[in-house]
């Protein structure tokens, strides 16, 4: 499971299928839900404590992987900026007929503007689709990790994990 990650730094779909932090297809269709891409046993557990719904469990052995209770999770996204590994996202496939919403952590400047068209970028850094910035959250309690929500074509909801500006400057 860690093979691909330690070789390339990229989790494959097969890896993620085994993650205890990844919600079911059916749950993502119903509305926003956390999508946790934390698959290496490192000692860390802030996601468990930040969740107001008790939907993420790491447990006493803090090297255990976070387990998502997809029924308890309401997709609030507080876990996105708290994760030191920037490994938590929110996916919402109920956004519209054509588009899904992807929430991702973003620590670069400048921040994008709502309504802006950008490229949706996958785990390997490849631009795979066009996307639209729907929401940008950067409150003080996120401690300088902004959360950007993108509307992406539904087919790319599980691929887009970053974005790139279309032109160098805004």
């Amino acid at each position, binding site marked *: 499971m860690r093979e691909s990650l330690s*070789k390339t730094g990229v989790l494959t779909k097969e890896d993620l299928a085994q993650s205890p932090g990844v919600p079911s297809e059916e749950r993502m269709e119903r509305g926003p839900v956390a999508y946790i*891409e934390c698959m290496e*046993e*490192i000692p*860390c*557990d802030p996601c468990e404590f930040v969740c107001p719904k008790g939907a993420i469990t790491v447990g006493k*052995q803090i090297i255990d992987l976070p387990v998502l209770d997809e029924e308890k999770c309401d997709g609030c996204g507080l876990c996105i900026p708290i994760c030191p590994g920037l490994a938590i996202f929110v996916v919402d496939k109920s956004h519209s007929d054509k588009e899904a919403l992807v929430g991702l952590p973003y620590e670069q400047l400048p921040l994008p503007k709502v309504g802006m068209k950008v490229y949706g970028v996958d*785990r390997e850094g490849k631009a795979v689709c066009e996307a639209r910035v729907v929401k940008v959250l950067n409150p003080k309690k996120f401690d300088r990790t902004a959360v950007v929500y993108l509307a992406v074509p539904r087919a790319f909801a599980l691929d887009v994990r970053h974005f790139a500006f279309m032109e160098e400057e805004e």
Partner: protein
Amino acid sequence: MMETEFAVVGAGPAGLSAALEASRTGVQTVLIDENQAPGGQLFKQIHKFFGSKEHWAATRGIDIGIKLLMQVEKAGIKVMLDTVVWGIFDGGKVLAIKEGDRNRRVRAEKILLATGASENPLAFPGWTLPGVLGAGAAQTLVNLHRVLPGTRVLMVGAGNVGLIVAYQLLQAGANVVAVVEALPKIGGYGVHASKIRRMGVPILTGHTVKEASGDAMVERATVIQIDEQGNPIPGTEREFEVDTICIAVGLHPLAELAWVCGCEFTYISELGGHVPLHTEKMETTMPGVYVAGDVAGIEEATVAMEEGRLTGVDVARCLGYISNRKAETLTREIQARIELIRSGPFGEVLGEAKERLIERRG
């Protein structure tokens, strides 16, 4: 000669934590650091730390530094900055210090060496050209001085330092063209690797830098694939146009003071090479001389803070400020926290190495 009960050399995470722990019980404590500001490397750690609530998890290193300094100030601990400790005499009882232009001595009943680590070099043709620098140096330039060392960077080494500094160079606006790693695997955390991969940085495992070239500074880096025995494979060379090559091939304990003081050492590669032997309460083979943090074996800042606390507790116990029983309880609490950090596939290796070190100390 200045006199104190406890002298701490190095005001990084280990030294600050030790000073706080000891002084809280009443131990008269002096912190000495050669830099102009305390905090060690914490102030260039702009990323959020892993860990649990007790380890300040999800807090940025820089903010941990600020909190520790506030506590030190509140505790009224004497901090001597711009002060170099250049010698240690009398069987580890007297420090020779240079404070500005003035040489002085400090006699202390207990001494902690919390001097940290230094970056390993990597020699290759062209490695002395301007533009080749340690990843830690690049991190200092970017995060402390806000100066980019260059605009196109090749990172050599995919341990946590290489991955994190690559990410921070990207944040600062540089273009990181690739990370090369001689080993067949990425050494650092997968999540750090994933962060830079999705920002478009390739990570080439089984590759190393063959040569840097350029007229007066780095203009090009030649990267070559290596086989499992570490031999370069001819014909696999690739050129990258870069102005900066960052070297992140590990750290070693900065242990000169422990050497000159007469501490016994052992060699444990997982801990960065030659490490002073120490007990589980961090005392070296020289009675009253302690080591904590990277100088006691390269690990995370979270471990450094806990090792500092272990030292502070033992110093307080030895000097009679807390009872044996109280010290035992505190020590066990700290050790339980260290054990948590040292669990998992990454931490276990270090935990086992540390056990070997402590066993050898006997």
